């Protein structure tokens, strides 16, 4: 760690990890309700549980991105962050908003109030005041990071990262717009959801991966940055019009069926390029970085994103397939592995890389960290398979044979039992991870000055 | 393989004009094979001719206009990709006659 203000990342990562714990626990309880439906049904119904599960996921991933930006931008720009005070203020706003969200959801406060009450569009349920807070926090963040970059050295990594972060903020503005016409509502809802996860988030992902590769493999910056441009070009060339795969059945024109099918089939390319990139870099590496756990997470991220986002996305993206599979368990199967592979793993990779340096220690609890990778990844893969099978059976019974939804759900309950089991293991993996990054191994030799940053 | 573009790296003016002339001739071939002025359907023979003429035109554009003749391996890859696409399309046409 060369710059004092990189420390800001520590606070962000800590809050992110706390929310990560809440997220997986929320998911676990929701998975439990699938198997034992009467659980908590009066106290915290399923819809509230799911909101907590998805919202905490989104917020912690974003906090991870912010933390990653605060960590890597000083090194890239070769100067301190413009204003650490603003960075902490931004975090404070996020924490306040998050607490507000949790309390509002759990106790169903201010129901119906347009400013204080929850706003029940999927993933965008945050009360209006929280949304505004997010916008303010995002503006603070963008000011802070943009100024740092503008006054410092410009690299392709910071360029792409900034573009991605600006995109996140700009597309989030569509969450403030809720048209009365349901079709328009859904169209612009995807402006946030799709253009985030299959658009600008990929820019953030690629640039953070590029940074990690640069630091850990010692391959020339030139090489890394060209790969970066190639990857992000593929992401946006395919991902923007790939939005069409959400516009098949929501009252939008029929031409989206072809635009969506063709472009989103190609959305696998950037993920494939990321796999090629990470493995080529590791193969051509010029040094052995001491933090093998971070390397494992980086490689795992590329591979799991390729399968989760790429392959599992392609499985049901062609419109004549999607006609039958749309809105079945096939979607959560894809969603779980895509989010875990692409964005959870990415955050865990940068956290694994940065933590030892932020805390001034050599990589510690590496083996435990790597164990947590295999535990979590294995369990997520298993969860994906169970949900995929559930989805296929559901598609057949419900969409082809026309059986009633609840009857079909009863017939696929075995898959939900198995999913609960894999959920338990994911939670164990998550806690192993959190323990491994925060708590040093007893008797471990801890360097006083920390590891020398690899560059 | 030259690392710095020199004049001889690009096709000569003469070669380009010749390429253009051949492309025009092949387009007339496309028009004949595709029976541009009539409504009749094309038999497998004409479809095959159309396929070959189109593939040849793509090859000329790639090798001369796009200068892929300097990287034969890349030209081969592109030609294979295009052939593959044309084969799939032509076979689908043959399937539903």
């Amino acid at each position, binding site marked *: 760690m060369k710059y004092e203000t990189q420390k800001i990342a520590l606070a962000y990562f800590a809050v992110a990890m706390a929310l990560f714990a809440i997220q997986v626990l929320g998911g676990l309880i929701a998975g439990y309700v699938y198997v034992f439906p009467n659980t908590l049904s009066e106290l915290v119904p399923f819809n509230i549980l799911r909101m907590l599960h998805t919202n905490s996921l989104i917020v912690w991933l974003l906090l991870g991105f912010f933390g990653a930006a605060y960590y890597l931008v000083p090194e890239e720009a070769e100067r301190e962050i413009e204003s650490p005070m603003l960075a902490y203020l931004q975090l404070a706003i996020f924490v306040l908003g998050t607490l507000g969200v949790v309390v509002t959801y759990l106790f169903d406060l201010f129901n119906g109030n347009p400013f204080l009450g929850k706003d029940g569009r*999927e993933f965008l349920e945050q009360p209006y005041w929280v949304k505004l807070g997010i916008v303010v926090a995002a503006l603070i963040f963008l000011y802070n990071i943009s100024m740092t970059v503008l006054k410092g050295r410009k690299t392709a990594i910071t360029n792409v990262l900034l573009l991605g972060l600006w995109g996140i903020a700009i597309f989030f503005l569509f969450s403030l717009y809720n048209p009365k016409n349901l079709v328009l509502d859904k169209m612009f809802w995807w402006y946030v959801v799709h253009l985030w996860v299959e658009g600008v988030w990929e820019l953030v992902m690629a640039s953070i991966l590029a940074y990690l590769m640069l630091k850990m493999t010692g391959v020339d910056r030139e090489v890394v940055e060209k790969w970066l441009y190639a990857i992000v070009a593929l992401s946006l060339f395919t991902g923007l019009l790939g939005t069409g795969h959400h516009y098949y059945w929501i009252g939008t024109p029929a031409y989206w069926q072809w635009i969506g099918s063709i472009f989103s089939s190609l959305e696998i390319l950037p993920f494939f390029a990321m796999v090629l990139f990470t493995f080529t870099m590791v193969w051509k590496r010029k040094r052995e970085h001491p933090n093998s756990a971070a390397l494992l997470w980086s490689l795992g991220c590329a591979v799991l994103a390729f399968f989760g986002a790429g392959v599992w996305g392609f499985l049901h993206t062609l419109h004549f397939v999607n006609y039958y599979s749309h809105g079945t368990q096939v*979607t959560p199967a894809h969603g779980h592995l895509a989010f875990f592979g692409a964005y959870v793993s990415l955050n865990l990779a940068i956290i694994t890389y940065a933590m030892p340096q932020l805390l001034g220690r050599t990589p510690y609890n590496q083996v435990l960290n790597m164990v947590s990778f295999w535990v979590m990844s294995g369990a997520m893969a298993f969860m994906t398979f169970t949900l995929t099978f559930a989805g296929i059976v559901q598609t057949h019974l419900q969409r082809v044979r026309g059986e009633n939804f609840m009857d079909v759900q009863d017939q696929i309950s075995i898959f939900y039992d198995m999913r609960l089991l894999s959920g338990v293991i994911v939670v164990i993996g998550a806690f192993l991870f959190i323990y491994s990054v925060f708590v040093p191994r007893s008797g471990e030799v801890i360097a006083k000055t920390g590891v020398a940053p690899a560059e | 393989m030259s690392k710095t573009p020199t004049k001889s*790296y690009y096709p000569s003016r003469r070669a380009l004009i010749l390429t253009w002339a051949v492309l025009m001739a092949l387009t007339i071939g496309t028009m004949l094979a595709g029976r541009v002025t009539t409504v009749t359907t094309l038999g497998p023979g004409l479809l095959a001719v159309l396929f070959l003429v189109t593939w040849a035109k793509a090859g000329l554009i790639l090798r001369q206009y796009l200068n892929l003749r300097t990287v034969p391996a890349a030209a081969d890859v592109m030609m294979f990709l295009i052939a593959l696409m044309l084969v799939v399309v032509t076979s689908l046409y043959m399937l539903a006659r």
Partner: protein
Amino acid sequence: MWDALTKSAARNIFYGGSAFFLVIFLGLTVHSCNYAQSTSTDEKGLNAAVINGKHTWERHACINCHTLLGEGAYFAPELGNVWKRYGGLKDPQGARETIKAFIKSQPSGTPGRRQMPNFKLTDKELDDLVSFFEWTSRINTQNWPPNDAG
């Protein structure tokens, strides 16, 4: 083949290409908005009851159990076609009453059965919600879902 390839060219191609696709996407969005308002939905039928019904739907985060046009959670049935499923096309009054009665009867408390909370909706809210379902069922969704099961 260049000794010095400029990275600014790489960046410009990336920006230019992305802008190209973004412009197309925005153009198609504009067209789709017009299409939604003129063709695929009953824009005129978007009265106060339907709008209030949509708010009721959002206020209680219904989408976090149900799906609507296939989007949402997958815990409870699809409601984009619930109007049709309950026979609203043939007997609107009967369908309306049945849906309202169902919502009011929740939670069933049946062991081992998924539970829908009781949202303590007023009669007007219930009516508006059903109006929203009825309006939604008339959206041209390119014949999705494949059957009444949703």
